[in-house]
Every structure is written in C-alpha cells, then in structure tokens.
C-alpha cells in the first residue's frame, strides 16, 4: 500500500539549495470530531517527522492535530554530497513509516 511520496531532484550541483517535498498518507484524525452517534472519535495523528541526509538530521518537526490530513511538508537543504535522504514519520497507535530517496551531487 503506497504510503509516502517524496519529491527531491535526482541530481544537483554541490552547494545548490534544493527543495524537498514530502507527502504521507494519513487520516490525521484530530480527536475533536464526533461520529454521527455522538461518540468522540479518538485522536490518531502523526506526531513527528524527520529527514536525515547521509545520517545527519537536516529537518524535523512535531506535528499537532491542526495539521491537515495526508501531511504535506516542504523544506530545503544544501546539496553537499551524493547520498541518501531518509524520511521517518511516527505517531499515535504505534504508527511508523519510512521512505528514502537518493541524490547525486556533482
């Protein structure tokens, strides 16, 4: 089942600032909604997101219920060297997802 989509340029020049776009499939149930029978629907959200570049953190975030469903977060990084970008999301009910992308820096 498709979980996350990453948009990062495959190639970049050394020192160039690149944009990284991330999208993850998640309902982000806020915990403030009621069902048709008046029951409070329990919170179920992603609470943390991290991106590492060859093992070093370049971006992280704490997410709260006010984040829209299917969280979309974009940020930037300096293309320093070729390697691997790893993305991790964790949240309520033991939710955990990872994705990775490679970048070639010349």
């Amino acid at each position, binding site marked *: 089942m498709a979980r996350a989509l990453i948009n990062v340029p495959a190639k970049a020049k050394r020192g160039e600032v690149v944009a990284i776009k991330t999208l993850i499939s998640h309902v982000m149930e806020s915990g403030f909604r009621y069902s048709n029978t008046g*029951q409070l629907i329990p919170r179920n959200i992603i609470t943390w997101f991290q991106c590492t570049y060859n093992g070093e953190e370049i971006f992280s975030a704490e997410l709260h219920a006010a984040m829209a469903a299917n969280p979309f977060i974009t940020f930037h990084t300096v293309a320093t060297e070729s390697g691997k970008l790893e993305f991790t999301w964790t949240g309520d009910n033991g939710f955990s997802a990872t994705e990775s992308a490679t970048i070639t820096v010349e």
Partner: protein
Amino acid sequence: MNQYGTTRRDVLKAAGILAAGAGTATIRAVPADATPAAMQAAIRRVIGEASVKPGKVSLEIPPLVENGNTVPCAVTVESPMTAKDYVKAVHIFNEKNPQPNVISMHLGPRAGRANVSTRIRLSDTQTVVAIAELSDGSFWSASTNVIITLGACLED
C-alpha cells in the same frame, strides 16, 4: 446557527458528553476551544519567556480559503542561513482551533534557505501566527487573519 441559538457543533458536543456520561465509567473531558489567551500560553510553553518581535518572518496563507480542512501555509524567514546565523525553528500557532499548536519545525544551517510550507486545518476564521527562533536566541513573528467559510453543501 439554528432557531434555538445553538450551532450544530454545540449540539453534537453536548450529545457526546451526555453519551459518555450515561453508560460508561469515565467521562472524557473535552477541551474548550482555544482562545487568544490559550494561544499565548502555548507560545510561552514552546519558546519560554523570550520576547518576540514582529518582523523577518513572512507567513503566506490565502486570505479566503476554499476549505478549512486544507489550508496551504508557507513561512519564509530572512536569514543568511550560515553556520553562525541561521533559523533554528519555525513554530505555527492558531487562535481558535480546539488546540493552539499546529507544527514546530526544526531547521539548521544545512537548510540553505529558511522556507517551509505545509497544509493546516483551521476550524474558523482566525489569526494564525508564525514564530521563528534564530541562532542568536532572538524570536521573530508574523501573523495573518484567515477567513474560513463552511462549504455550502455539507454531506450530512
């Protein structure tokens, strides 16, 4: 607002509390809607007692959004993003959702550019605040008022 002066949301909330109390052992406390004071308290909890100055931060949200469930939100902070002078974090808060925090993003000199964007949920017309924390310990902010309309044709 119906003829009884209640909104649909109030009616459902009351129903939820009653349902919780009627048959079950615990009554779940439902937090009150956030207020400007609650937002200030949340800001203090995140950034401590430092003073926040308006400036350096640009918060882009469309003034009239199509749907409060998905509000595009972009924050740019003026900063050279060098190892000595960079943006450490960007925090977004809201005034009227049930909960005042939206997201806290941690950047660093490796970011190259202090420009982030995301999609947030806003329950009502309200003010959204973005606060940037710089490497020199200073805090800067920007705020925008956003108008949220309910869709004309709801599903239930």
